[in-house]
């Protein structure tokens, strides 16, 4: 699907939107730099990259490299180099989160918590390198934005209300910004605390804001698994801001969260 026009058109900005159904969710590409053949090719390449990543990393496909690696029928050396890259990133985040991020839940090999954000940031890099200085990639609710949304205007990213579909809680803003939200409102208790083996409790929604989605997304997953402990942990993460909704219906945020306010 390609669309020109859109809200940006009212302010004279270009807008090219492409929507890709992949990895069990939907990736939305929103390019505000005026389109060029190079950017168009980069969108194709980004879409192709996502399908490639899904084929390599899907734990739902028995023939994926990650499934065969887990089954012992494939060695890491025989995998595409990005498998080693992702597993190394997993190890890094696992350490940074005190084991709350894991790529081996229940002893299975499953780096899914890393793959989506990493793939989205890689897709964003492809667009940027092709000249799309101003664009946004939304990977099923996790966002990597670059540049501006319009002339002199930073990106405005709404944070979905976990209990009221269609409403927002806040709007964060920035030029080069990554926003990732972990929560249960869309798919139930799908985040397990690796230290207890049970669904994480204490938080309904945790949004982290930083620069790089690979990092921010994986940290959000880890932080969500921490529940109530996430608040103190997040406060010590350099370059990361947070907005959370607790299971008892309250919210908290870090002081540096780049909130957009009217006026």
């Amino acid at each position: 699907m390609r669309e020109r026009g859109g809200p940006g058109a009212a302010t004279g900005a270009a807008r090219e939107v492409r929507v890709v159904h992949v990895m069990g969710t939907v990736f939305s590409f929103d390019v505000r730099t005026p389109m060029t053949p190079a950017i168009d090719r980069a969108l194709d390449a980004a879409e192709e990259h996502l399908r490639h990543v899904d084929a390599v990393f899907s734990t739902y496909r028995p023939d994926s490299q990650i499934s065969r690696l887990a089954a012992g029928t494939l060695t890491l050396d025989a995998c595409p180099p990005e498998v080693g890259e992702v597993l190394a990133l997993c190890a890094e985040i696992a350490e940074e989160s005190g084991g709350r991020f894991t790529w081996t839940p229940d002893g299975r090999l499953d780096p899914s918590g890393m793959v989506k954000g990493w793939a989205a940031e890689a897709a964003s890099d492809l667009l940027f390198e092709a000249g799309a200085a101003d664009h946004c990639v939304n990977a099923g609710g996790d966002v990597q934005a670059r540049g501006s949304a319009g002339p002199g205007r930073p990106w405005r990213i709404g944070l979905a209300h976990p209990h009221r579909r269609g409403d927002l809680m806040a709007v964060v803003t920035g030029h080069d910004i990554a926003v990732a939200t972990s929560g249960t409102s869309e798919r139930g208790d799908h985040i397990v605390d690796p230290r207890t083996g049970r669904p994480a409790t204490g938080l309904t929604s945790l949004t982290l804001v930083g620069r790089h989605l690979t990092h921010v997304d994986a940290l959000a997953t880890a932080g969500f698994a921490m529940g109530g402990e996430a608040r103190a942990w997040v406060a010590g993460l350099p370059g990361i801001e947070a907005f959370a909704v607790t299971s008892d219906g309250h919210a908290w945020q870090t002081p540096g969260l780049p909130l957009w306010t009217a006026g």
Partner: protein
Amino acid sequence: MMRRAVLATSATVAGVSLLLALKPHHNGIAAASGQGASGGGGAVTVAPPVAPGSAGSGGSGGSTGSSGSSAPPKQGAKSGASGTYTGSVIDTRYGPVQVAVTVARGKLTGVKVLQTPSENGRDRRLAAMAVPQLTQEALAAGNARIDTVSGATYTSEGYINSLQSALDKARA
């Protein structure tokens, strides 16, 4: 929630404009029930902060909170009472606040702030709040044209009715 407010006095507490609403007579005085009021039986409640900038002036501000829910005034609350009334510690979003008021012959003569949020307390509590809600109407009224939405990962089916889907389809 105690919101018995009549006389509004705006005060700046730790840099935060906080609306203190006090009423020395009529039905504005809450039942003290053992709170240590030195000069009488009444305790003055402090209204939780109202939206910034809405602080009324004079005797009419904050009157919405005074109707209906107030406990009957204790002895000494009628006009002509004198003494110092110490309010309960009220948990505001900025931290605990406690005030005492001095009343002479039924008239408010002084307000003393006994407890305000400490810096640490303020920092801690500034970050805690009820879950805000920006409805589509509020967003439209505030001209908050958002570009994209972050939320819990939706499925391919969940996307169809999502706000992100609407944004992707939006045309000027």
